[in-house]
């Protein structure tokens, strides 16, 4: 707290202070869908493989009070949509369509700020700017794959993600961490596994919703033999992005009205 005060004091040295604290409206009259949208047959996966749950109180309050929601989808190639046949097939675009149907009467806007190959530290820097400019109600942060490949030390990754999640929480913006890409080529990569474990632990410690993308896609790829990967066997194809969008939509809606944090110890990373 002292550091925060000192930093703010510093910021104020150069400019005129016009303090106007943000007021966060809370209203229990949020539009409640009867149940989360059903997964299409090809995207079925066990619930425990789709997400580690956590509540989204601020997003729920925004939906209730404003009847519209702005979601910032930030991350790397899976957010941009590398591997999809067109950008309209990337996961944020498909997610918007699913949420618009599921949350009738709510205007859902999704801003896509995916930059392929970006590591979490750079995204974290952009995130601050994007939040200041766009004021989202919910942040979907897809991350980890490039940090693992760039051999970013796990503790450095951990510090970057935790500090970012912390300020988002302090700013009353819900965040969903969208986990690493599934690819058979990296199934036994030590760094990959380490970053995956770190991300899972951060989500559990911080009590934020975590999309277990690796597990869900592995399940679909192995159990259903449905091709969710593009020809390069790394990026998702159209179906993969469809499933990713469905999984995120289901997790977000299912956790919209979760009031208390549910322990995630029953899941393994």
């Amino acid at each position: 707290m002292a550091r925060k005060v000192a930093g703010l004091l510093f910021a104020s040295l150069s400019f005129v202070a016009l303090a106007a604290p943000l007021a966060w409206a809370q209203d229990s009259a949020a539009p409640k869908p009867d149940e989360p949208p059903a997964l299409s047959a090809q995207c079925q996966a066990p619930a425990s493989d789709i997400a580690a749950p956590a509540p989204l109180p601020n997003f729920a309050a925004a939906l209730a009070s404003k009847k519209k929601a702005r979601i910032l989808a930030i991350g790397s190639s899976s957010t941009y949509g590398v591997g999809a046949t067109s950008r309209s097939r990337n996961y944020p675009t498909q997610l918007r369509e699913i949420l618009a149907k599921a949350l009738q009467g709510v205007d859902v806007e999704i801003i896509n700020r995916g930059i392929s190959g970006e590591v979490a530290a750079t995204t974290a820097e952009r995130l601050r700017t994007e939040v200041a400019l766009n004021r989202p109600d919910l942040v979907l942060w897809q991350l980890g794959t490039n940090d693992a490949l760039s051999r970013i030390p796990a503790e450095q990754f951990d510090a970057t993600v935790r500090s970012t999640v912390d300020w988002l929480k302090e700013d009353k913006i819900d965040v969903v961490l969208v986990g690493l890409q599934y690819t058979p080529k990296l199934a036994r990569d030590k760094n990959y596994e380490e970053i995956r474990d770190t991300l899972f632990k951060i989500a559990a410690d911080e009590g934020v919703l975590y999309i277990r993308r690796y597990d869900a896609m592995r399940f679909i790829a192995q159990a259903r033999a449905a091709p969710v990967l593009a020809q390069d066997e790394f990026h998702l194809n159209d179906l993969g992005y469809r499933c990713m969008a469905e999984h995120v939509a289901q997790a977000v809606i299912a956790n919209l009205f979760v009031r208390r944090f549910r322990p995630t110890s029953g899941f393994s990373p």
Partner: protein
Amino acid sequence: MRAPNEIDFWRGFALLTIFINHVPGIFYERFTSRNFMLGDSAEMFVFLAGCSLRFVVGSNERRASVHDVTFRLLGRAVEIYAAQILITMFALAILAAAGHFLGQPALLDWHNAGPVFQDPIETHIGLVLLTHQLGYFNILPLYVVLMCMAPLFALLDRFSPWLALGVSFAIWTFTLVTGLNLPTWPVEGTWFFNPLGWQFVFVCGFVLARKDGPGALVRRHRRWLRVAVTPIVILGVVSAWNGFSPSPGDVPEPKLVFLFDKTYDSPARVLQFLCVALFLSGLWARLPAWFEPISEYFSRLGRNSLEVFCVCSVLSLCGQIAAYMYGGGIAKDTLVLSIGIVVMGLSAWLTEWRARSRASSSQV
């Protein structure tokens, strides 16, 4: 070649820092200026580019003509643009080769390269228009725009350096208040280095390098100014050291004014950088004799900054590929840094050697 000087020295220093910061996760990253300052080497590099602009424009006594200045600056913009295209193609080829020969398609995504391979038609148009920039390869596009804006500031400076500074400040303030930025395409978003924000630190360098006006005022009162700004420097160091950066929810509107934002080069970053620069100015002349070889090395890098920057950018990408292949660690990172120091020095030496050869052959 010109003798070592303060501007070249610090520019060389900034180049080496950029190289280190562009190999994420490298051990030596923790010793770079961004751990002690709210800004990083980019502010120093752009500020010094502004100082160098003074040499192009000329002194009050020996002013170059408006035509001459405009053509030289626009010519420089074209030169930097060509360098940007060249290093971008090198980077794409390196990523393509790494992805192909290492059998790892994920490498094709690095640094916003994914869309080049995924949507080549649109993205190639974007590369040429500078609306698509690779991550870590986004400083030169900023320079291109700054060089295109530079004739305007050079012209205003003829009337008064205060006028140039005032117009620059007005553009910067307007940008911070409105959030105006250049768009990227085909990838949705905006420029990572917003030229409308970064032009202010560039113009600060330009006007402070002038013998009279704001520069003279600062130099005349340097001693007590240093005392006055010490708390700002210390507060900035403490904030950076502790990783403090206010979040958008912590600050009032207009938020970009109060954040420590890199894209817009927000006031806190610029202010602390200028205060640190006040302390560093004049230091070069007082460096001990044993430091001379290092000083010469950095000055040589700085004298050939564009060529060295290009080599530095490509080398840092190679460093990242090496980290992917062999992992990190102090020993490997030391090797990467050593190779960087040697190759950057060698490229500066080669550039000067070529210039000397050309000069001597033209005399024959």
